[in-house]
C-alpha cells in the first residue's frame, strides 16, 4: 500500500516522517503549485470550492507517482467538505485511476481516527496507535506555535528574510523529529532562535485574518498573503489554526480553551447558530478583534463558500457597529497575484493613515 494524503498547509510535516518510521509507504504529493490547480480545475465541477480543486489536483499528481490509497477526511455538513471524497473518487475512477479511497468520515471521533491510523500503519496495539496519533498532534501544535512567532516577529525584523530563515529551519527540525524529548529540545532551540532575531521597536498595525480554514492554512491558495502583509509591517493574528481545530476535538493542548465554543459564545448577537465550516469562528473572532481595538480584519474565502458568505454579512454589520475596516477577499482559480497585491497595499495604506495620520507608501 502506498498511501497519499492531499496537502493542507504544513500538515505533511506533522505526519510524514512519523508514519514512515512505522513502515508506512507514503507518497507525499508535490507542494501545491499551479500545475496541481490546473489539473484539479480541469476535472472538477465548475462551482466546486477552490480547496476541492487543489485537493483533486494533488490526488492526481500522487496517483501518477504511484499512490494506491488515498486518505481523505470527511464529515456531515453543513458545508460541502464532507462530500469531497465521494465526488473526488467518482472523478478519479472515471479518469481511469485505480486506487482505494479511505474516507475518515467522522473526524470528530477519536475512536474513528485511531482506528484509521491502525489500518494504515499496521500497528496492532491500540495503545501504540493512540501514542502515534497524539505525537502527530503535538508536532502540529509546535508547528503552529512557530508560525505564530513568525507572524509576530517578521514585521519587526531588522535583517530582511531572517525570520523566514529561522522558520524554515524550525520546520525542517520538527519534520525530522520522531520522539517527545527531541521535540521539547527543538522547541527550546527554536525559542532561542526567534529571540535572537534583532527587532525594531515600533508600533505596528494589528490585523486579524479570518475565513475558511483551508485558505487560511495553505499559503499557495491564499497567495502567501501572510508573507505579503508581514513585509508591509502588519502584525497578523490568525483566527484559525489546525492545532486549535484538532484541539477542540481531542484536547491535547491543556491550557487552550475550546476555540469553537468560545467563538460561538462571542458571536451570538451576530450569528445565532453556526452556518458550518469556520463561519462561527470568523464572526466570533472578528468581534473579539473589534473589541480589542484591532486596526482591521481581512476575511479570506473561496468563491461559492456558503458558510463564509453568511459570515460576510455578519462582518459587514460588525464593521458598521465597531467602525472596524473589513476587507473580504474571494479567491478562485482566476485570481491574479498582482490584483491581490494592489488591494492589500491599498488596504494597508488606509489602515496606516487611519491610525498614524501618514501614508505607508
Amino acid at each position, binding site marked *: 500500500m502506498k498511501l497519499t494524503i492531499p496537502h493542507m498547509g504544513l500538515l505533511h510535516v506533522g505526519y510524514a516522517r512519523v508514519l514512515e518510521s512505522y513502515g508506512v509507504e507514503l507518497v507525499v504529493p508535490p507542494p501545491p503549485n499551479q500545475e496541481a490547480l490546473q489539473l484539479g480545475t480541469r476535472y472538477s*465541477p*465548475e*462551482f*466546486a*470550492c477552490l480547496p476541492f480543486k487543489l485537493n483533486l489536483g494533488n490526488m492526481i499528481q500522487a496517483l501518477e507517482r504511484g499512490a494506491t490509497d488515498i486518505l481523505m477526511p*470527511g464529515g*456531515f*455538513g*453543513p*458545508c*460541502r467538505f*464532507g*462530500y469531497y*471524497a*465521494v*465526488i473526488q*473518487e*467518482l472523478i478519479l475512477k*472515471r479518469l481511469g485511476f485505480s486506487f482505494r479511497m479511505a*474516507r475518515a*468520515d467522522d473526524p470528530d471521533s477519536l475512536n474513528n481516527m485511531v482506528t484509521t491510523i491502525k489500518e494504515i500503519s499496521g500497528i496492532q496495539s491500540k495503545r501504540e496507535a493512540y501514542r502515534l496519533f497524539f505525537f502527530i498532534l503535538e508536532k502540529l501544535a509546535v508547528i503552529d506555535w512557530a508560525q505564530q512567532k513568525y507572524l509576530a516577529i517578521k514585521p519587526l525584523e531588522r535583517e530582511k528574510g531572517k525570520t523566514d530563515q529561522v522558520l524554515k529551519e524550525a520546520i525542517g527540525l520538527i519534520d525530522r523529529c520522531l520522539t517527545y524529548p527531541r521535540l521539547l529540545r527543538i522547541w527550546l532551540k527554536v525559542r532561542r532562535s526567534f529571540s535572537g532575531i534583532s527587532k525594531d521597536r515600533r508600533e505596528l498595525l494589528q490585523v486579524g485574518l479570518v475565513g475558511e480554514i483551508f485558505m487560511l492554512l495553505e499559503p499557495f491558495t491564499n497567495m502567501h498573503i501572510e508573507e505579503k502583509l508581514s513585509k508591509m509591517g502588519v502584525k497578523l493574528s490568525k483566527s484559525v489554526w489546525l492545532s486549535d481545530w484538532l484541539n477542540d476535538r481531542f484536547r491535547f493542548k491543556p491550557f487552550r480553551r475550546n476555540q469553537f*465554543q468560545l467563538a*460561538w*459564545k462571542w458571536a*451570538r448577537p*451576530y*450569528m*445565532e*447558530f*453556526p*452556518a*458550518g*465550516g469556520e*463561519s462561527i469562528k470568523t464572526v466570533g473572532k472578528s468581534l473579539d478583534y473589534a473589541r480589542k481595538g484591532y486596526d482591521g480584519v481581512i476575511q479570506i474565502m473561496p*468563491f*461559492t*463558500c*456558503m*458558510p463564509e*458568505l*453568511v*459570515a*460576510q*454579512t*455578519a462582518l*459587514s*454589520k460588525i464593521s458598521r457597529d465597531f467602525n472596524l475596516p473589513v476587507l*473580504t477577499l*474571494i479567491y478562485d482559480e482566476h485570481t491574479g497575484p498582482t490584483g491581490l497585491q494592489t488591494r492589500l497595499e491599498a488596504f494597508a495604506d488606509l489602515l496606516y493613515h487611519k491610525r498614524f495620520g501618514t501614508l505607508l507608501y
Partner: protein
Amino acid sequence: MKRFWTRRDPIPRYTLKPGQPIGLPRGMMYYHFAPLWQAFWENLGWPVLVSPTTNPDLLEAGKSLTRSDLCLPIKTLLGHILWLKDRVGALFLPRLISIEEEAYLCPKILGINDMVRNLIPDLPPLIDPMVNYKGPARFSLDDSFLNLAAGLSLEVSRVQAAYQEALACWNDFQKRLPGRRGLPKELIPEEMAGYLFPAEGRECRYRIGVIGRPYLLFDPVLSHHLLKKLSSRSSEVYCYQALPPQELDAYSNRLPKKVYWSLGKELVGASLSFGQQPRIDGIINVSSFACGQDAFTSHLIEHYLQTDSRKPFLSLVLDEHSSEVGLTTRLEAFYDVLEARPSAE
C-alpha cells in the same frame, strides 16, 4: 446545567396587535412549508400577507442590499422581506437548521435569519422559532410551534390546536403532490397554474422530468419562465415531488454516501428515479449560478444518469444575466434530440 450552546436565548416576547397581518416572504422554504405556516396563523386569528410574485423591482432591492456573492434565490428572499417589512406587524421566518434526521438544509438557509437581522435595518418583530433535528439541541417541528405559545402570550392548548389543524392541512397538501406531478398548485401564481395544468384534451407529446429547486422553478422571474417554455412545447412537467418520499429515499440510498442536504438528496433521488421510468422522455437539471450544493449534486446526477440511463439530459445554469434567446436555443436543441428518439424507449 445545560451548556450554553444548547440553550437558546430567552424566548422573546412578541407584542403583536390582533388583526395586524403576519408577513410571509415568498421565497426559499415558503415553497415547502407555506400551507402549514399560513394555516397556523390564520387559525390563531392573524391574517397572513404573502409577498407578491417576484418582479424586477423586488429583485433589484434584494440585490442591492449586499455586494456579496450570495445566490440569486437568497437575494430574492431578501427582496421579498424588504417589500414586506413596512406592511406587516411581524415577519414569520422560522430558523430551519435541519428538517429531518441526518440532513441539513443549505448553509445559507441556516444563516438567512442572521443575514436578515444583519443586513436589513428597521425590521418589524421577526418571529423565528428554530427547527433543528441535528442538534446539539434538538427542536422538532412540533417543538418549534409550541415554543411560540410563551412568546405570543397564548395558552399552549390554543396554539397546539391551531398547529394540529394546520399540520393536517399540510399533510393533505403533501399527499396531493404526487398526483399533481409534484407541482404545488396552491403556491404558484395563477398564470403559471394556467399553463402547467392545461385543460383536458390538450395534446401532450412529451413528459419532461425537471429537476430543480422549487424556489427556482416556481418563481417565473428566477427561472426565466422555463416551465412556460416547456408547457408551450406540449410537454408535461414532472417535478421531484411527483415521486413519493419512500421512492426518493430508496434511490438516494444507492449512493456511496448519503447526501446530507435535504433538498439535494431528494433531487438526486428524483433524477435517478426519472432516469429509470419509461414514462419520462427527458430530464432537465436546472440550477442557479454559484449554487453551492448544486455544484456537487449536479455532478452526481450527471454521473449516474450517464452510466445508468439513456434518456436525453439537459443541464441548465441560470442567473439574472441569462439571455432568453440562449435559453430558447438550448431548449430547441433538447427537443430536437427528443424528437429524433424512437417513441419506444
